[in-house]
């Protein structure tokens, strides 16, 4: 315990509550209130309604939820496979090469997502790589943006994995593929689940690149929210935001339960 005195601890809790309340809870509370607001001209809404939720459900909300979920799942799955592959491959490389490639893999996370979207739009708008106007370019954009995080998570897991496990497995006669399937991947499972969860959450909230490349008919939740608020329909945008938060939270809590179970075992 860093702070021993009771008054000191009370001060620390007050500071924490203030920061957490202002920075995290207040914006979410405002969005929640907006999604339920009938009219909002004063400090608080003048009345509450669920009409905005009905509107978005009857409108394009479910298509947007589906587009976001499919994009998130596919992009995260591909990022997980490639990130794991990259992390495993880099582990057996020369230390300098591994460091250089490791930095390169992180570059997409340092580029603004709008720039990534623009880059993809330019790169894939001409044959033979004509992806502009397809769902695939949305997947590619999300993959590019989240793959660095899956790579980072899996690399961290591998770094914590004692080489003894794999070496003992090899000495017992396990070939590399058998060893990977029965030893390395099961031991990495908590990190793989965490990497997938993080990638999925990032994908669900991705707007900058998606708004540059999305084709008609594949409007994700963030793009829908952006469109609604851009048109001035703030309350509907807030309702859709709450749908996005709920869907993402449910999925992450599910993944957390899986990870927790694995950690306990």
């Amino acid at each position: 315990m860093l702070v021993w005195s009771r008054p000191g601890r009370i001060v620390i809790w007050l500071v924490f509550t203030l920061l957490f309340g202002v920075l995290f809870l207040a914006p979410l509370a405002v969005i929640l209130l907006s999604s339920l607001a009938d009219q909002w001209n004063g400090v608080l809404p003048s009345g509450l309604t669920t009409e905005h939720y009905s509107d978005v459900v009857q409108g394009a909300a479910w298509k947007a939820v589906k587009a976001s979920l499919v994009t998130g799942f596919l992009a995260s799955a591909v990022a997980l496979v490639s990130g794991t592959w990259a992390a495993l491959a880099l582990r057996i490389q020369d230390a300098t090469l591994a460091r250089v490639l490791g930095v390169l893999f992180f570059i997409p996370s340092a580029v603004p997502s709008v720039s990534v979207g623009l880059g993809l739009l330019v790169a894939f708008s001409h044959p033979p790589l004509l992806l502009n106007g397809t769902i695939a370019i949305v997947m590619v954009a999300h993959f590019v943006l989240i793959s660095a995080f899956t790579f980072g998570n899996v690399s961290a897991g591998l770094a914590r994995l004692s080489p003894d496990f794999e070496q003992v497995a090899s000495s017992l006669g396990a070939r590399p593929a058998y060893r990977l399937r029965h030893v390395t991947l099961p031991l990495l499972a908590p990190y793989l689940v965490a990497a997938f969860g993080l990638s999925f959450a990032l994908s669900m909230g991705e707007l900058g690149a998606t708004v540059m490349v999305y084709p008609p008919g594949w409007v994700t939740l963030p793009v829908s929210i952006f469109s609604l608020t851009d048109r001035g329909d703030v309350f509907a945008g807030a309702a859709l935001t709450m749908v996005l938060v709920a869907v993402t939270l449910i999925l992450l809590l599910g993944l957390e339960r899986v990870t927790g179970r694995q950690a306990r075992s």
Partner: protein
Amino acid sequence: MSVPAFTGSNVMDVDAAKIRGAGSNVHFDKVSVAYGAHVVLHPLTLDIAPGEILAMIGPSGSGKTTALRAVAGFVRPASGRIRIGATDVTDLPPYERGLGMVVQNYALFPHMRVEDNVAFGLRAQGADKALIGERVKDSLATVGMSGFAKRYPRELSGGQQQRVAIARALAVRPRVLLLDEPLSALDAQIRRNMVEEIAKLHRDLPGLTILYVTHDQTEALTLADKIAIMRDGRVSSHGPTVELYRLPPNRFTAEFLGRANLLPVTVTEGATGPKGFATARLGDALLAGAARGEKPGDKTLLCIRPQHLSLTGDEEHTNRIVGTLKEVHWQGELTHLVLEVDGTPVRVSATRLPVSLPERGSAVPLFFTPGDTSLVPEDVRG
């Protein structure tokens, strides 16, 4: 649940006999290992006979683990060849070498039950189900862990995990068992028991060749048929355990393998008589000890173990030196005395002391037999 000891001879008739396989010899032929320009193992030529336990012992960074890892296939030699039996395994991947390996932290797969851990190697090699079942049963019985098959590693103590790790290595009927500091993670009491149990296991499986890497001289002395003492990436000495202990070929071996008093002496007479004792002078005293071809006039070291020095003489203890008592440390079973003889500190470990102990600073005669004494060349590197 209490843990039975390793099955030993009583169960060996039932289980260990099934596990007993023909061990192979291991041959290092000028094997060297280097990381860039840094040589961690200088050309090493060494044989481990079938069924032999060779302990590689030495301080950290002496190259002992590197030598074991080269046999396992985790380190590629910069030069030389390694043969296991008739097979040159130098270029074979680890999974084709037919070994069993036990490491310091056990490395039991935490997501598998004990029985699945033990079955791992056989499954990886595609053994049929009936054989796997039989081998798992036999191997667990051999290490006294039959009742723990359904447990997960996290539900076992350190000693139990180590037994399972040994069972897992034995289940694949290895040509050679590699033990890399296998008891280092255990506390002292359990470690002592495990050393005895591994010794018993090898008596039950006499055909099993074992390369045992440790920094613990007690483990090496208890278990090994032969010992290779490593220093700075080279073998400082290699030979039968008892011989290395009784007649250490150099100062490093004498000091690393057990405690040794090394007194600088001058040889006055080379080896004579049926026992080949030489005579050497220390101050005024003339002392006899096992010789290594020393000639009169040679400056050398006289090695005598602390427990071989006695405060009382008899007709066998014909060697006599006099020292000044400096310190007395009582440690229950033993009392350690530190004396100074001709400027050199001499340690005595005594189980029984005279009723009246001499006072500090007084002159105390020490007696020892020529048979417990040897002449050791000064710091010759192997």
